């Protein structure tokens, strides 16, 4: 009798899942998430998919809709092979930053895993997407699906009208510049609504119809070529809003050879790159938040006897697989696991808040011993990205626990030097260096458009600001420059300038390639 009562309290038993169980578990987890962690989420749409469909989703950068391109086909083959050979398992879930938040569940998962995934993705990631300032300001969760739908059909229409090869050429070139296709500092304009896009197309079509070649052949009015004084140079840069860090944006607006449909395709690539930019800056936080949420919620459910011991064991096993962090000399080591670091830092905040040591009080006077770890975490999730989160919250306790150390690596030395280890002198340096390594803006090559001589040879001039003497890899740089020339239509050159001294280190022009 007693055991029956206990059983009826369990949310589920056995490993098979069905939609009724999923709904029951979701409702329970959601209620707990609101009540205990104060989460705030987009409505959830859960989609059950098979493993093949998961592979499909992988290859189209995880989006449910994507335009067609050969590189996705290539990626699909890689993923499929890895999966077939057993080298890599598939993710249990995939979550999309959209409103409603779409969560993919794999049909192969057991019920225990589905519960874990619900807590992880439908609550953890979902909360982060909705509340983190980067996502709030830089992405449009409500509009992304309809935009992708538009992008897909627009590119399909272009393929029909202009041929696969022409569209592919533009997409290839645009894809090489995806990293340089985001606004890092300036906030991007909102996605236009469907109506605006319609209007835009009507306008483009009108322009195409009413194009009159006659005007182009008019002789230039003034004979005197304006002298290239500093003043005109400054004027020109101002009118083109130079320097410009977003190369795709610049090319889309100012390229001399592109047709309107080609500009629109560049715009699509640029917008998708921009959409993913916050995700790249918040890997540790995003995964940490989701992992912290699922770990906390699952344990709460278990404490309240809502999950059986067998299911909990399965959940913990999967959890520990996810947060496994091998040491640097382990053959399995492949960088710092964002799940592990994120979870540890967030649990550390919980610890500092409730049971601080004297050291913690020194380092974190604001939060140590205040007991309000929920608010601290909610605040961190809302207002930080990886770089600032690590810079602010990585504690000496954690540095010791992870036994973090810093290697200085200079290319011209035959040795690495151990610069800092987990001791009093090293904490601050390790923390700052780790934070730095998560700064996407700083760790990616800084390349900007600095000038273009529209009246002369129309050469596009780029500048690579070299930090710490790190140059660009030659082969891929040349290949990428060629792509830029395709989009710009004229020669392109790039100078490498040292960030500190301002000395010119090298210059490369597409003429030489």
């Amino acid at each position, binding site marked *: 009798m007693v055991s029956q009562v206990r059983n009826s309290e369990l949310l589920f038993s056995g490993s098979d899942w069905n939609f009724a169980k999923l709904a029951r578990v979701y409702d329970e987890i959601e209620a707990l998430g609101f009540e205990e962690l104060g989460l705030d989420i987009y409505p959830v749409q859960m989609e059950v*998919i098979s493993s093949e*469909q998961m592979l499909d989703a992988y290859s189209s950068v995880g989006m449910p809709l994507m335009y067609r391109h050969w590189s996705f086909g290539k990626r699909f083959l890689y993923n499929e092979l890895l999966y077939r050979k057993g080298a890599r398992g598939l993710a249990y879930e995939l979550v999309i930053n959209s409103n409603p938040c779409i969560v993919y569940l794999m049909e192969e998962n057991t019920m225990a895993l589905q519960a874990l995934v619900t807590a992880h993705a439908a609550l953890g990631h979902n909360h982060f997407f909705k509340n983190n300032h980067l996502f709030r300001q830089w992405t449009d969760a409500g509009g992304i699906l309809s935009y992708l739908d538009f992008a897909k059909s627009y590119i399909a229409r272009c393929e029909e009208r202009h041929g696969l090869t022409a569209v592919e050429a533009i997409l290839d070139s645009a894809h090489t510049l995806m990293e340089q296709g985001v606004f890092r500092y300036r906030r991007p304009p909102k996605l236009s609504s469907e109506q605006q896009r319609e209007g835009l197309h009507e306008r483009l079509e009108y322009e195409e119809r009413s194009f009159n070649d006659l005007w182009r052949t008019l002789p230039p009015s003034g004979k005197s070529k304006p002298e290239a004084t500093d003043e005109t140079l400054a004027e020109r840069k101002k009118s083109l809003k130079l320097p410009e860090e977003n190369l795709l944006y610049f090319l889309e607006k100012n390229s001399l050879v592109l047709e309107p449909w080609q500009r629109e395709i560049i715009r699509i690539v640029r917008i998708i790159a921009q959409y993913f930019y916050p995700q790249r800056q918040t890997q540790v936080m995003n995964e940490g938040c989701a992992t912290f949420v699922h770990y906390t919620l699952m344990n709460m459910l278990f404490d309240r006897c809502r999950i059986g011991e067998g299911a909990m064991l399965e959940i913990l096993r999967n959890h520990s697989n996810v947060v496994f962090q091998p040491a640097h000399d382990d053959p399995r080591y492949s960088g710092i696991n964002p799940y592990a670091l994120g979870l540890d830092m967030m649990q550390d905040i919980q610890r500092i808040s409730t049971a601080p040591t004297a050291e913690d009080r020194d380092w974190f006077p604001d939060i140590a011993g205040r007991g309000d770890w929920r608010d601290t975490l909610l605040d961190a999730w809302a207002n930080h990205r990886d770089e600032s989160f690590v810079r602010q919250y990585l504690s000496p306790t954690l540095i010791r626990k992870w036994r973090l150390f810093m290697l200085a690596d200079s290319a011209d030395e035959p040795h690495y030097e151990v610069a800092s280890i987990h001791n009093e002198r090293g904490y601050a340096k390790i923390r700052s260096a780790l934070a730095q390594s998560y700064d996407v803006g700083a760790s990616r090559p800084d390349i900007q458009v600095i000038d273009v001589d529209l009246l002369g040879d129309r050469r596009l001039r780029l500048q690579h600001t070299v930090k710490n003497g790190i140059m660009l890899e030659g082969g891929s740089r040349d290949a990428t420059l060629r792509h830029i020339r395709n989009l710009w239509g004229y020669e392109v050159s790039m100078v490498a300038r040292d960030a500190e001294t301002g000395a010119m280190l090298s210059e490369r022009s597409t003429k030489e390639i």
Partner: protein
Amino acid sequence: MPIFIDRRLNPKDKSLGNRQRFLRRAREELKRSIRDKVQAGGIAELDREHAVPIPRKGTGEPTFGDDKESGRRQHILPGNRTFSSGDLIPKPGGGGGYGSAPGSAESDDNFRFVLSREEVLDLFFEDLELPDLVKLNLKQVLSFKPRRAGFAASGAPTNINVGRTMRNSHGRRIALRRPKQAELDAIARQIAELEAKPASALVRERLATLREALDRLERRRKRIAYVDPVDIRFNRFDPQPVPNVNAVMFCLMDVSGSMGEREKDLAKRFFVLLHLFLTRRYERTDIVFIRHTHEAKEVDEHTFFYHTESGGTVVSTALEEMHRIIEQRYPVAEWNIYAAQASDGDNFAGDSERCIELLDRKLMRLCQYFAYVEIIDERESHIFGATENGTSLWRAYNAVDGKWPNFQMRRIAAPADIYTVFRQLFARQPDLRKSA
């Protein structure tokens, strides 16, 4: 409660379009892979799936990336056990980060993916349609198989259909009122009874009538046979034409010094194509390889394509060898015989006449089809392109060509020609049955 959507039944091959685009993109490299495979493997192996390495050329996606060999960096790593500040650690050989560069240099060599049969063929024949369309135009050899087709009034005694015959006989006996044995027996019994009685005039008269009736009945019985020739029915067999399911393909090739790698490769492609075509058509396809210099030999496939031999060129030896093998192993009634000959056109002076004779007298009667491809230099192709003029073998075969509709000859200069030539060869529809 969230919205649930079950997508498992949605179409799966969402990325098929991407796959096609990828294959198109990597076409050149994939083509090379397939070509290598074909050159290394057997003729019969083309017609199936193939695993090929993922092509890298033309499918790179360049971006601006850091040069690993320059500059100053700082790496943060977990799991320090023994290091303290200021320690120097020698860099592992070959440069690269200290384990911190996460698997950026993936070894792609192990990655092979499977191309479907259609994709392989498509690549191999350079995006031309496959010869399905040709199929119908191909004349086919008919062999005949007897098949039951009702009954006939005449035929061989072994084919008598007893049931049918007896049925006819029974009907006829009823119609003609053939006396039954029982009737005769009854009269005979009456006669015996009367004979046993004391003879009186009445009895004698009655006996006489009975004897007369018995005699009449017996005569009638003799006249109306129990089984008459008109009753007899035979099982009738119609010869039903059935397509032969066996085909043998003779590959004849000149391997003398004048045939270089290029020529052999082209020849091989042509053979592959013919074989492919035959395997689609016939249940069983044999291949016989005959190579010749000044003498001909039947050899295995590997020897055929890869062993070189020096010597003169006497084409007729190969034809003779082919004829001998047909006589020995491939009876014409059971086998569809196809022959494909590849040569650069050289022949021993005077031998061409002998070739004509061999073909004319013997081989063309046996062969379903004889295709001759002459592999010429690309530079020659525009010279010879359309003319009837050419090498000695070409001129000789021209005579055969005119005479036999199942003889075809073409020139090939480049791989791209092969399919078109093949198509030309098989496009004509000579309306001839096996004219033996």
